[in-house]
């Protein structure tokens, strides 16, 4: 059937900020869907609160709302845009839930908006666990035994019925939040109760544990004519028991006979029809008992999911794009396969390589949470690799993770140094278990013993055994070397095994003619010619890279998402590619993150899906010989390669690696500032405790301490006295020769600024000056900020601009630069300078309406800002506020305090005319609903008491009842503000924690200082987090919140599309 002509405009809801369980895969899917629908002539209205997305670029949709994904806001947008239809399936669980809310509250009906792609009964049947289970049983499929409980009594009965071990899954939570496995009935009680609390509808599913079964996923696509195709099969290396998002997964399925696979395929088709998913992509998960092949259906996602992104990248079949087209009535046979051109989308991709995805974890950021994987997702990103064999694919995936591991090194060993300990640890799924398997083989365990301990299928284990057994055979002899390379060994790993340098391995390899060839991902295993250069490396005979003799620029992406390096950098890379394509270059993208827009096959002229290591990048460079390589847009990952690549003769585009080094190297940087007469906080460098103590005494407490080479503020702390400093030195870092600790004077109560600027070597244009809302001491990635600034004098701003100009010109920046300042008493200090794209580039671009990453890319390719027409700073009249979003709820036992170490996973943006309303929007977008009335609880440290007074007064004026800890209440009383005194946790009687848990408190303001105070007030913050009570841990944040509340009492939030903001270009 051709596309529908009875609808003209379609609304899409994005997935909001990046959180665990919902990452940039939904930018990829949303962007694809927007493009696909516009291609078919529809008017697309998009809403997403996340500015760091390609989908919210003003050119992606016809109308773009960077507004909170909240019911009243959505209704307002619908009222003003009057879309004919809503496509709910490409914005993750957030988009789906929001659509469901719109339907259930009658908004869609009221405005005559048709839901396309999925209908409400189908969504409910798939999402409601009991309905789903009943449906599966009705069509004769097997499911794990289970029951649904809404109270502990119900849960108890069901649990006793099935018997431990049991799995608890709260309903309607993101990424399986609150999911857990209970091995005993005691454990079960605690976990079930927690699950009931976490579920927004107070409902949990209790399931028979099928831990240890093999886990599979099928990605499926259906059109209105009931044509159904399986896009990809995925087998999890980690057996059941580990959330699929945290599992190592492999495509296609490896250990199924055709008979078993077809049973699964038939079941998937039957499920699609039974659930009634009208059109689009879905994902079905199965478990198979390895002993007898019994197959149980686990769950189904009636929408584009994280696995869909993986399946799209693994096969070349663009699931989101096709899902959008079938949603408007097109049938699969009417849609052509972009890659082969001649064949239709109504086929099943077949692949002639093996794909491995490994999740990326950040347990090091949350030391209170143990590295144990279960049914609740904890990973923050993933890397994917393609190889012609599983061994090659697996080893490429390991080095793609960018955790300084280049294969099966000793990373897994940890503290497991004796035999028995290894088997015990293998039994517990963890981020390092894969390496531990390798270690177990080195300890001489058999495959059977390892399998008994971890239940990983022997096919995977045997592959790892072959890798480990190859290790002692490796040498620089051509035959041995070729064999090792065919098995996927990295040069770095080979060098470590035979004790030589990476360069020696590389030279021996090249001398023996052992170089990779590049093969095409073509959906069809070469049955048809492919027109889309989507490539991966392998060690075989024939090369398909089809190198063109054109002016070309290669862009190195950011690799797997992690805290501190996320979607913002992918946004920059994609913009660079778009801009340089427009400027006539052939663009070549290199990246290994399957969630991203950058790894979409039509983002760049060529895509190399490869690890971002020196070896892999040099191999591509050797083949393509690009005119320039951009390393400054993908965050730390490519930046770290700048010097090694340059030394290997690779032309680095834009700012020179030497300039980057000059800004990063402490001594050179100090010299640079001296030369320019600029100030930074007093500082020193210590290799041992006494020296550290001496430096701190000289520059004065408080001081900021951190290990010398860190990303995202790892292990960075503010220390207020000598004892704490000594304890930090003892605890936090292994200090030693070559691993010093940096000590900076901490400027208390300073205002921090982030400045992004662009320079072509001749002129410098400030793109945006952002004022942090939290005071100095909170990592810039975790701090909310506003653009333009609100509290700085013209003199300070002029000085900031002067310093930015001086720095950019002196460093010879060609491209982007980010400078962080601290301002105290009108004095300006430089915190750091990064001559590269920063995390704030997408936010700034959207705030000022200028695509600065695109301009920077063109500058790096040789154009001038004058020629590009960007010579003046844009200071918008509207106010943009960025707020960070945190994963605390996923990590039980973790404190919610902000500090110099970055902990946020994502960000949202609020735009409106004034600060209060923009801040309120940003809060709402981040999931914090500012209250309009009720009781606010206040507890602040002494130095914040003066600052609290105006905040408390404003809240009281807004009609809030105030309660406070004794000291805080007394301080407020002195200022004439009445607040009921209430106990802290340990003081006995009804405490703040009790009242929070009882729902009596609607707002918490709590600013503790020092370790003791942290521990005291921790239960309070945790209670606020778990009960979803808005909490602010800085006075500045609290003041902004009060301003937002004040606004909300007077007016309601309006909406306005990005395209209508005046500065839009």
């Amino acid at each position, binding site marked *: 059937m051709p596309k529908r002509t009875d609808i003209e405009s379609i609304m899409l809801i994005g997935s909001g900020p990046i959180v665990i369980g919902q990452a940039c895969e939904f930018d990829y899917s949303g962007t694809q869907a927007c493009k696909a629908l516009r291609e078919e002539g529809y008017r697309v209205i998009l809403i997403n609160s996340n500015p760091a997305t390609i989908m919210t670029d003003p050119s992606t949709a016809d109308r773009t709302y960077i507004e909170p994904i909240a019911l009243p806001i959505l209704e307002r947008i619908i009222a003003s845009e009057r879309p004919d239809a809503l496509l709910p399936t490409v914005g993750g669980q957030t988009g789906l839930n929001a659509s469901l809310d719109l339907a259930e509250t009658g908004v869609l009906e009221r405005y005559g908006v048709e839901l396309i792609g999925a209908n409400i009964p189908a969504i409910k049947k798939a999402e409601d666990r009991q309905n789903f289970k009943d449906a599966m049983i009705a069509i004769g499929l097997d499911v794990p035994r289970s029951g649904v409980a809404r109270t502990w009594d119900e849960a108890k009965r069901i649990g006793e019925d099935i018997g431990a071990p049991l799995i608890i899954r709260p309903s309607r939570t993101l990424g399986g939040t609150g999911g857990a496995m209970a091995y005993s009935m005691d454990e079960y009680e605690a976990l079930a109760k927690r699950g009931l609390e976490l579920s927004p509808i107070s409902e949990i599913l209790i399931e028979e544990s099928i831990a240890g079964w093999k886990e599979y996923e099928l990605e499926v696509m259906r059109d209105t004519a009931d044509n159904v195709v399986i896009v990809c099969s995925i087998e999890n290396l980690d057996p059941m028991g580990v959330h699929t998002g945290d599992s190592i997964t492999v495509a296609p*399925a*490896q250990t199924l006979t*055709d008979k078993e696979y077809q049973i699964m395929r038939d079941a998937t088709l039957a499920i699609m029809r039974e659930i009634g998913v009208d059109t689009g992509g879905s994902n079905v998960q199965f478990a198979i008992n390895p002993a007898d092949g019994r197959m149980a259906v686990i769950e189904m996602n009636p929408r584009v999911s994280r696995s869909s992104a993986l399946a799209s990248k693994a096969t070349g079949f663009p699931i989101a794009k096709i899902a959008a087209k079938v949603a408007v009535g097109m049938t699969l046979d009417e849609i052509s396969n972009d890659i082969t051109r001649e064949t239709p989308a109504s*086929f099943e991709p*077949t692949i*002639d390589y093996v794909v491995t995805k490994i999740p990326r974890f950040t347990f090091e950021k949350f030391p209170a949470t143990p590295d144990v994987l279960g049914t609740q997702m904890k990973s923050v990103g993933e890397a994917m690799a393609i190889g012609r064999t599983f061994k090659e694919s697996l080893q490429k995936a390991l080095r793609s993770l960018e955790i300084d591991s280049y294969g099966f090194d000793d990373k897994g060993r940890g503290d497991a140094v004796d035999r028995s300990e290894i088997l015990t640890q293998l039994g517990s799924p963890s981020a390092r278990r894969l390496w531990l398997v390798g270690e177990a083989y080195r300890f001489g365990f058999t495959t059977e013993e390892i399998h008994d301990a971890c239940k990983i299928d022997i096919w995977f284990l045997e592959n790892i055994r072959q890798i480990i057994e190859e290790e002692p055979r490796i040498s620089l002899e051509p035959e041995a070397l070729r064999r090792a390379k065919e098995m996927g060994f990295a040069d770095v790993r080979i060098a470590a095994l035979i004790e030589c340098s990476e360069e020696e391995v590389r030279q021996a390899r090249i001398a023996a003619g052992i170089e990779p060839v590049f093969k095409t991902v073509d959906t*069809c*295993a070469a*049955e048809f010619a492919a027109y889309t250069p989507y490539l991966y490396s392998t060690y075989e005979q*024939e090369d398909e890279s089809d190198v063109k003799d054109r002016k070309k620029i290669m862009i190195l992406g950011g690799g797997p998402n992690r805290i501190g390096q996320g979607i913002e950098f992918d946004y920059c890379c994609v913009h660079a590619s778009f801009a340089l394509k427009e400027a006539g270059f052939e663009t070549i993208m290199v990246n290994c993150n399957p969630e991203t827009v950058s790894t979409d096959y039509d983002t760049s002229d060529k895509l190399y899906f490869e690890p971002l290591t020196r070896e892999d990048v040099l191999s591509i460079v050797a083949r393509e010989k690009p005119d320039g390589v951009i390393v400054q847009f993908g965050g730390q990952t490519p930046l770290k390669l700048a010097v090694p690549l340059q030394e290997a003769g690779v032309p680095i585009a834009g700012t020179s690696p030497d300039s980057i080094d000059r800004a990063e190297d402490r001594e050179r940087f100090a010299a640079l500032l001296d030369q320019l007469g600029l100030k930074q906080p007093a500082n020193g460098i210590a290799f041992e405790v006494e020296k550290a103590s001496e430096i701190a005494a000289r520059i004065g407490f408080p001081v900021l301490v951190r290990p010398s080479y860190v990303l995202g503020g790892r292990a960075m702390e503010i220390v207020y006295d000598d004892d704490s400093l000594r304890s930090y030195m003892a605890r936090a870092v292994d200090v030693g020769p070559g691993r010093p600790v940096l000590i900076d004077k901490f400027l208390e109560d300073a205002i921090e600024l982030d400045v992004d600027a662009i320079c072509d070597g001749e002129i410098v244009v400030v793109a945006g000056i952002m004022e942090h809302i939290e005071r100095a001491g909170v990592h810039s990635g975790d701090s909310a900020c506003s653009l333009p600034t609100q509290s700085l004098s013209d003199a300070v701003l002029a000085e900031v601009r002067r310093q930015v100009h001086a720095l950019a010109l002196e460093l010879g920046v060609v491209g982007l630069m980010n400078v962080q300042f601290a301002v105290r008493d009108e004095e300006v200090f430089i915190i750091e300078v990064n001559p590269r794209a920063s995390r704030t580039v997408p936010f700034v671009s959207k705030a000022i309406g200028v695509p600065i990453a695109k301009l920077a890319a063109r500058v790096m390719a040789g154009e001038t800002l004058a020629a590009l027409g960007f010579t003046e700073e844009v200071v918008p009249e509207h106010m943009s506020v960025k707020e960070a979003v945190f994963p605390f709820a996923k990590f039980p036992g973790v404190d919610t305090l902000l500090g110099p170490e970055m902990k946020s996973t994502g960000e949202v943006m609020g735009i409106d005319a004034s600060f209060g309303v923009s801040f309120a929007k940003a809060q709402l977008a981040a999931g914090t609903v500012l209250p309009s009335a009720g009781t606010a609880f206040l507890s602040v440290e002494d130095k914040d008491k003066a600052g609290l007074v105006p905040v408390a007064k404003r809240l009281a004026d807004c009609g809030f009842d105030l309660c406070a800890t004794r000291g805080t209440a007394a301080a407020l009383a002195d200022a004439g503000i009445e607040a009921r005194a209430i106990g802290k946790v340990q003081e006995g009687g009804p405490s703040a924690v009790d009242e929070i848990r009882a729902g009596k408190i609607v707002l918490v303001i709590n600013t503790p200082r020092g370790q003791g105070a942290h521990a005291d007030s921790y239960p309070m913050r945790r209670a606020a987090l778990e009960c979803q009570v808005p909490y602010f841990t800085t006075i500045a944040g609290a003041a902004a919140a009060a301003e937002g509340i004040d606004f909300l009492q007077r007016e309601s939030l309006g909406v306005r599309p990005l395209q209508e903001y005046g500065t839009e270009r």
Partner: protein
Amino acid sequence: MNAILALADGKIFRGRGFGAIGEAVGEVVFNTSMTGYQEILTDPSYCGQMVAMTYPEIGNVGVNPEDVESRKPFVEGFVVKEYWDIPSNFRARQSLHAYLEENGIPGIQGIDTRELVRHIRERGAVNAVIAHGTDDSADTLVDKAKAAPPMEGRDLVAAVTCKEPYQWEQGCWTLEGGYTAPKQAPTRKVVAYDFGIKHNILRNLVDSGCEVRVVPADTPASEVLALDPDGVFLSNGPGDPAAAAYAAAHVRDLVGKKPIFGICLGHQILGLALGGTTYKLKFGHHGGNQPVMDLTTRKVEITSQNHGFAVDVGSLAGSAELTHINLNDETVEGLSHRDVPVFSVQYHPEASPGPSDANYLFGRFVDMIDGSR
């Protein structure tokens, strides 16, 4: 490096051998199925051919006694990227290597199979020799490949068909019960011509309520009619349909007398019997992901296919009507007779390996039988 794959056009691949020691000659084709190598190996339609699997990891699930499509493996040689010797599957009873060795079939692994596939895609299916552990030089092997007879004009049906008629009683496989006898007594009698029949066709006929008598390919129509069947089935098989002219002649005598259903070679033979012609495809269709549209319902089915020849659409005049087309290359995938209950498909509704989307065709056949009684 103890194995060579030498193509008649002079292209050489060196790799490691597995399976039987020795040499094999045949036409190399590639198969794009990611699962089901055991069914592929035992499909008699591959007689005279060597199969290169495009999926690189082969052998993962070993070999079991159940997943067989005929009395023995029929491929001449087997080509894979990485052979896997340690099976991981609860039904596996032996390794693929041991199975091939037992059946005298040489294999080669460790070659750039994607290069081979692209070579075949550009130049067409080609004769070749696999030599595993033999002394012949590459040049000699190329000469042997050149000397091999071309597929066009080759009647391979005679080599694979049964010698004597037999009854078939086994139904389809289930996870719980393996192969089972049908629950209900058959209500229709079907005679199946064995041009190289896959067992899963017979199992599906049994499950559709048919009593199945399998007869050799050269059984004259009169003998078939003497059995008084309710319907006649024409099976898949190897080689050039035009070379098995006797088969088309028998079928011509049956058209209009009994409902007829043909699959693959049986479809081509029916096409010839209805006055059409067949031709050799460049490299054929071998895999489990081919999209076919049923022109009567406009629905797309994902099909299992294995054929190197096709019925020429332009030759279908008069009584034959096009019913199914391949959406990739628009070749003929199904036809029917305008006036009498006769139809056929080029692909494999019995799957095994591959998707079961087209399984409804067995129902269509028995409906046709029931409608003409």
